């Protein structure tokens, strides 16, 4: 049972098993959309390599053509061919049915994480100097107002975090506040989940509208404390001196 088809099948199964069962042993499970994406890439690689030359094409596709055409087959071979020709359309039909059948499960999400901020918040800069006193004050305010959800270590693992879906943002992740300008955080803290724009609805954010309780000064200092505590820097267009 050796040959490019067998090797290709082994690679595909290997990629699937690794992504579906082995990787989750070390980290969170991958969603089906990503597993299909990677398996499709592996399949395209196998097809490209298998059809590159005349000999590889023959080795790769030859057995498939011969099997499907039924030439020179008898007994078990004929039965296997018949089984494939019957089962394959049934498999496609079943797959189609399961995709289209009404379900009580919510649809897959493609949530927009960073919606565009309203114009009035664009271009704002932190009016308070980045001095130790302000940073310390920001961290203190953060501890009081933000850490229950976003965590004392700025990692999104506060004591209240397990109660939220989606979970509070992890500021120490380089993919969150490090990608954003301070004005963006100012908008998100000030207006909260209810202040999010309609783009990419439906929104799911339990972030309070902090403008009700905190002054602008406090919000700017919290931002300063967040960046410092998470060891990240805001996105800027000027280098710090």
């Amino acid at each position: 049972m050796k040959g490019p088809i067998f090797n290709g099948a082994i690679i595909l199964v290997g990629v699937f098993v690794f992504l579906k069962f082995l990787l989750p042993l070390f980290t969170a499970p991958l969603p089906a959309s990503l597993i299909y994406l990677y398996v499709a890439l592996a399949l395209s690689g196998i097809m490209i390599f298998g059809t590159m030359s005349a000999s590889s094409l023959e080795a790769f596709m030859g057995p498939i053509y011969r099997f499907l055409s039924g030439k020179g087959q008898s007994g078990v071979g004929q039965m296997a061919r018949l089984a494939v020709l019957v089962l394959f359309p049934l498999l496609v039909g079943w797959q189609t049915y399961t995709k289209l059948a009404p379900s009580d499960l919510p649809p897959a999400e493609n949530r927009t994480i960073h919606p565009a901020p309203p114009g009035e918040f664009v271009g704002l800069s932190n009016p308070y100097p980045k001095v130790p006193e302000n940073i310390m004050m920001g961290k203190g305010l953060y501890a009081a107002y933000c850490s229950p959800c976003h965590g004392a270590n700025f990692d999104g693992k506060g004591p209240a975090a397990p109660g939220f879906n989606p979970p509070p943002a992890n500021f120490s992740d380089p993919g969150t506040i490090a990608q954003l300008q301070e004005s963006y955080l100012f908008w998100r803290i000030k207006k909260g989940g209810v202040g999010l724009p309609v783009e990419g609805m439906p929104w799911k954010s339990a972030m309070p509208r902090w403008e009700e309780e905190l002054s602008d000064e406090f919000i700017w200092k919290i931002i300063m404390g967040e960046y410092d505590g998470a060891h990240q820097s805001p996105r800027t267009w000027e280098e710090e001196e």
Partner: protein
Amino acid sequence: MKSQGQWLCKGFSDSSRWIPSFMKWSAFLALLLFPVMAWAGGATQAMSVEYRDIPGIGSRNIVWVVAQQHLLLAGFVLGVPIFAWVCELVGWKTKEARYDKLAKEFTKLLTSAYATTALFGGILLFLLIGLYPKLMAYLTDMFFPSFLVYCLLFLAETATLYMYWYGWDYMQGNKKAFHLFLGFLLNLFAIGIMIVPNSWATFQASPVVVADGTAWERAWAAMQNPTWWPVNIHRLIANVVLGGFIVGAYAGVRYLLAVSREEREHYDWMGYVGNFIGVFGMLPLPFAGYWLMREIYQYNQQMGITLMGGFLAWLFILQAMLIGVLFLGANYYFWMGITHRIPGSEGQYRKPVMAMLIVLLLCLGVWMTPHSLVASLEEARKMGGTHHPLLGVFGVMSAKMTVSNLMILVTFMSFIMYWRAGKVETAGWAKAAKAIMGALLVLAGIAVVVLGVWGYFVPAIIRINYFSVAQVLIVLFIMITFTPLTALLMKSAKTTTEMVWGKMPIRAGYSLVLNAVMVILLMSLMGYARSSSRVHWHIYGVMRDTSEYAYSPALGYAAAFMSLNTFVFCLLVAFIFWVATLGDKAKAKANEGKPLDIAGHAAPAMAGGSPAAGEKLE
């Protein structure tokens, strides 16, 4: 709003069973009259009309399709002369007549393509004036002096094109230099024709409005808006890519239809040249795209986030898929070229090809991984959100820049491998040169990855201003040093196996067509992204869109229009090619009855014709 676009999906299919044909024609004519009636209704109050609409179709949809067709045709008309001129120049320098023939073959296409482009430009202009009078009045007021420059450029371009095409056979021999100069002028005017309207489009995205000064001063200030030059450079390179891959697709189709060995060899070679130019343009394209996005982000954070992190961010995942297919398709064609055109080389290159393919696929996997994943509620719960704790790091620019640089590096090495295939270096310093090149390549790959990983731990501005630029410079350094070094090595190399043209399999022709379709889809996709980043503004922050279409369509709806635009453009290009090659067919008919150069070539490759009796075509 609900009915808008239904025509696209539903068509006339439901009614076709019961409406007699004359009634169908009547309905069709009535449909054509709708816009006329709608316009007539607004004629009495022309001065106060801000918008007009085409019922059932929608003014935005019709402008979307016509503008996209005009842009794609313009890309072709501007890209092909660059291609033709470079080929002519190479033919002149190397004294190889086939390059001159190739250049002439494509200039022939230009005349009909040029007229079609102008036709769509005219239709677009009429539609814009009719459907968006307020916007057009504003733009006219702002840019009128540049309209005059545009007209002059058009006149100069047309005259030069006529002289360039009709004078081809006359300006041979010692007049060739003048013909080349005309080709240079043609490209110069073509670039001018591109950059002037680019300023109008980029002004809408990043306006610079100056109230004082003369009309010329105001127009010049508006032209020099922040995204003008990034778009100019990006479009110029993209046009070369489009031109190259369309030439490749043309050659691919002609190769599939070829009936004689001579034709097969010629179109195989043309396909190679088209693919080469497409790839050559594609290598710097991501750098230009990165610069454009950087300028947009710097110009306005809101627009930058809408594109890269907001609701348009999914377009960049589609972009990654399309670019990935393009990279794979272009490399696949190179690799097939090695195994089919150089007999006996397959075993030698199997392992390097596999290594390159694996790197390309891994890079593509990273590029296509979104920052927030598409996940069911259950999956999101298990992951702790739509952001995967491990693979989520692939979703940011540091990872994307790294893998795009690596893919460019691999594709460049594919080309170098193709160049060196079937030859043995004889220079005494060849071994040392190859060792240095190998070491540099490994070091460059490591450096690109290290900078990419490091980019996660530095402020964004350091990553954008230094790390990303350093990655690009490293890749450019490899290209700039390897190309002349390989050329020197090949100068004294001994050919062990001659390259045989016309031996490529059928799927090579299809892969060339696929590459062209991918480029067209890509341009339609990114054109939509750039245009819709203005969201509900005609002119960002200056003039709001107050029409009934001041909303962004769903991504699926937009994708349907991108597909429609790609399909229509392919039809138009096929029509242009058909018209332009009618003369060849007449000549071929005149030669009918004359014996073919080799026996057994009556059937085209697509129909299973073979290069020679007994030779098998895959």
